[in-house]
């Protein structure tokens, strides 16, 4: 028992640190601009992609940013079919629609649907944005955690500023801020403030760490708002670069390139063929600076007083901007100007938030595209329980020559049993490579090859497997309609592209991701 007083003293100190924010927050001044967002969402089925899963109810937080718009997270309203917003203290919720949604940076803009709602919202005072917070500065997260009816404030400290993964998208990385306060379900989309200024939007947390939350900082939010200014969301650019960070820390490696150990820079290992950097940046190049900011051997640059990944600078550009790299190539230092533009169409194994995943049903065989959602049908441990080929392609297909030019990675997701497919080899979860021996790069080409082929047999070849599917075309033609009617497959294909967003369909929005 002798140690108890010491423990109590230590606990009190910790509590005092947390309970004493440097800036007192006047909640009354902010509460009128903050909304609880309630959503009914209908996600598509991944294994029978013509269907919708049962509706799910959820809630989040949003805040008024002016011009009748409410800012929240994309994941709060993803696949939304019905959205309402409700201010703390109000009795009646206002029907809203998703006007813009950006899944890559997990932000969305909502607007009231009806004139009354618009009028009510326009009377509010918009919240204003601040700058990137300083490390170890106090912040307050405001929202409706756990679906509560009253606004809640959680105090915390900025503990890290980094360039990291946004889990809503699966693979996108952007600037984010880590705070040492809990961000709970329902907090999502809520403002994180210092004084009266918004310095970020609460959006994700670590399930294993109880008091670690992440916020989308204002450089990313401001970029999103600039992006949608012309009425269309074009998205963050993808540099398509895989670099070998830290290699030039080695003196002999630096000497190989004629650099001194303090020259900085990172070596380029791979450049994606679909990226705006393709052909301009080459494997083996040394990136020494980006927009005149020296890149360290740790691949970081100075940004608002902190050191962050150099990709942050590229990532925050808008389409039509330019990025200038200082490059060392074959011993020569040169400036390479990269026009920032959308990537060429290519396979992306991110989360899909379309009305339906791209799919095609032929002879009762359901083919769909590989995505993170599809992998997650194997559960929380999909990264070990999903078939090896699928999880490997999810992360590495971009590097494999066999898949470098694929628009889609097409997977046989299901067999709808029928006599016509009774004897096809067990290729469930196999990855399509060719039809009738011709390489297939997209779902459109796949559907086209099977629908319009003229040979007596349609043959489907799979990656890494010599056992092909052979189907008599005449028999398939006579059974397709019957199978689709029996299993309710309507339509038999969905080939829409990225503009096919589930939330924009559901709530009549206009922005395009």
């Amino acid at each position: 028992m002798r140690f108890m007083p010491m423990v109590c003293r230590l606990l009190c100190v910790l509590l005092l640190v947390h309970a004493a924010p440097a800036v007192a927050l006047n909640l009354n001044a902010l509460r009128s601009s903050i909304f609880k967002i309630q959503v009914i969402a209908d996600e598509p089925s991944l294994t029978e992609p013509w269907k919708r899963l049962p509706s799910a109810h959820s809630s989040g937080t949003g805040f008024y940013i002016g011009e009748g718009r409410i800012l929240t997270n994309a994941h709060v309203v993803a696949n939304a079919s019905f959205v309402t917003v409700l201010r703390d203290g109000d009795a009646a919720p206002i029907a809203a629609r998703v006007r813009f949604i950006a899944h890559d940076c997990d932000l969305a803009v909502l607007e009231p649907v009806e004139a009354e709602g618009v009028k009510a919202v326009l009377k509010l005072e918009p919240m204003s944005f601040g700058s990137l917070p300083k490390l170890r500065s106090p912040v307050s997260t405001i929202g409706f955690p756990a679906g509560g009816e009253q606004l809640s404030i959680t105090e915390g400290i900025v503990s890290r500023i980094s360039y990291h993964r946004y889990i809503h998208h699966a693979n996108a990385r952007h600037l984010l801020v880590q705070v040492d306060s809990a961000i709970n379900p329902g907090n999502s989309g809520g403002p994180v403030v210092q004084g009266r200024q918004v310095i970020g939007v609460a959006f994700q947390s670590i399930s294993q760490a109880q008091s670690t939350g992440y916020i989308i900082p204002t450089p990313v939010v401001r970029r999103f708002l600039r992006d949608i200014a012309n009425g269309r969301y074009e998205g963050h650019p993808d540099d398509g670069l895989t670099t070998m960070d830290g290699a030039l820390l080695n003196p002999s490696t630096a000497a190989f390139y004629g650099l001194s150990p303090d020259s900085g820079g990172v070596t380029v290992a791979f450049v994606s063929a679909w990226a705006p950097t393709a052909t301009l940046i080459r494997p083996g190049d040394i990136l020494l600076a980006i927009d005149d900011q020296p890149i360290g051997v740790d691949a970081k640059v100075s940004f608002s007083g902190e050191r962050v990944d150099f990709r942050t600078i590229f990532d925050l550009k808008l389409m039509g901007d330019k990025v200038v790299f200082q490059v060392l190539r074959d011993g020569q230092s040169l400036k390479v100007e990269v026009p920032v533009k959308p990537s060429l169409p290519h396979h992306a194994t991110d989360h899909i938030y379309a009305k339906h995943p791209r799919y095609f049903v032929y002879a009762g065989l359901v083919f769909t595209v590989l995505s993170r959602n599809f992998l997650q049908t194997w559960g929380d441990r999909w990264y070990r329980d999903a078939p090896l080929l699928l999880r490997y392609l999810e992360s590495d297909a971009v590097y494999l020559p066999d898949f470098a030019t694929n628009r889609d990675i097409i997977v046989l997701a299901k067999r709808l049993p029928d006599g016509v497919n009774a004897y096809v080899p067990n290729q469930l979860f196999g990855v399509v490579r060719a039809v009738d021996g011709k390489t297939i790069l997209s779902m459109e080409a796949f559907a086209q090859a099977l629908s319009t082929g003229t040979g007596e047999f349609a043959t489907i070849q799979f990656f890494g497997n010599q056992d092909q599917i052979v189907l008599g075309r005449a028999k398939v033609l006579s059974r397709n309609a019957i199978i689709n009617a029996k299993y309710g497959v309507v339509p038999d294909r969905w080939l829409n592209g990225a503009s096919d967003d589930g939330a924009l369909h559901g709530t009549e929005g206009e922005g395009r991701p």
Partner: protein
Amino acid sequence: MRLWLGICLLLFVCGESGAFAAAPIRYEDQVVRLHVSKREVDPSSPWQSEDTVQQEFLGVVLPNGEILTTANTVANAIFIEMQRFGSTERGEAALVFVDYEVNLALVKPVATAQLLATKAVTLGEDVGMDESVEIFKGRDAYQLSRLPASLQDVAVIGAATSAYGLISYALKVQQNGLGWSEPVFLHGKLVGLTTGQDQNFVQAAPMLLIRHFLSDHHDQSYRGFPAMGVQLEPLLSPDTRRLIGAGSASGGVRVAEVFANSPFLGKLQTNDVVLAVDGVAVSEQGFVTHPTWGKVHLKYLLNRHFGGDELVLKGLRQGREFTVQAPLQRFDSNRAPVVTYSYGEPQPHLIFAGLVFRELSQDYLKQWGKDWRDIAPSDLLFTLNFANKVTAQANTRRIFLVRVLADPFNRGYTELRHKLVATVNGRPIAGLSDLRAALARPVRMNGKDYARIQFAPVGEEVILGMDGLAEAQARMARTYEIKTAASFYGMP
């Protein structure tokens, strides 16, 4: 007929009771315990071994005094002791012969005195379906105990110690902890050796394999168990049958691929149909009919052959029948680029500037435990599953970077691990000898020599100067207590 039934009944009764009135069988004299000290190579530090472990197995005494057991018993063994049941004495035994492909081995007591009180088993015949047998358990006890079992299935499965397909019994038994080379007896005769257990089913090697192994070994020139080197797929789909011209034929399996080392290369081609093997008709699913066991996969027919035997196939190519014949080759699990096993053998590796390279092997991947096929690094698993085809060139290996022994010499690269080597100094790498040869031809840049090591599939590169390499490696040898200088590149 009546006389024959009477003899059978007498054998059955005697077998059940375990004792003839005139000459009772003392199984304790025929079965011995084998205490095996095993030591595996540390997969991540292949210059050293993991801790020694002791395991117990069983074996049976053969007429020539040798002890028959499974290859699993002797895998990674550094010391074997034999002990008779009823005796507390242990005597050293030595390995006589092992074939990991068929999972069988022979050991022999070093001192013949150990055999004085033993008696040889009588070899029996293959067991019929549903026939009752006895499994003798006792590897962890001083007494043998009998467990009743019955033959429920006979199937071709992957050997526990190799990638070879073996005919195997599935014996139903109400007991756990089996599969450690326990002998299986029927009517006092040996009819199998257990090789593993899956819940209530114990796998056992049938006499077909045991007799093949013993006769082959005693012929002095071991020829081993062969394979066709051909991937065959079921041919159930009527559409596929019509496409490849097999619509009117009955049975047969499709040739999906002929491997680069197959004796049938150039004789069979993709989409040929194999209708019969050794004159035995093959079903659409790849089964043949065995007189006792019924439906068995055609691979079982290969278990009957020896390396070098001629195999005759009846085939169909676009509707026309043909016969083809080729000499079979002894199966070698390690012929594929990813090594299947290397029991007791040194793990080939090379340390260059602290970068530890070795051949990719299933032994390495198995360090991730029983679920290694799911949780080992996906790059390495992908290589095993999708980039592991046998090539025309023997000894092709996949070389990968295991890890980096951190040192000032290799700073900047210390976090690298599990990277497959594509090229070194511009030369493709398909083995450790390629790696050594390529490192010996450094790249010249700015008046100095460098090694450029590029990894697949991303293309990351390690570039390290050759100056000061010997000194740095000597330092690493001291720091990491690596006593085998030959592990390092360029060290004697």
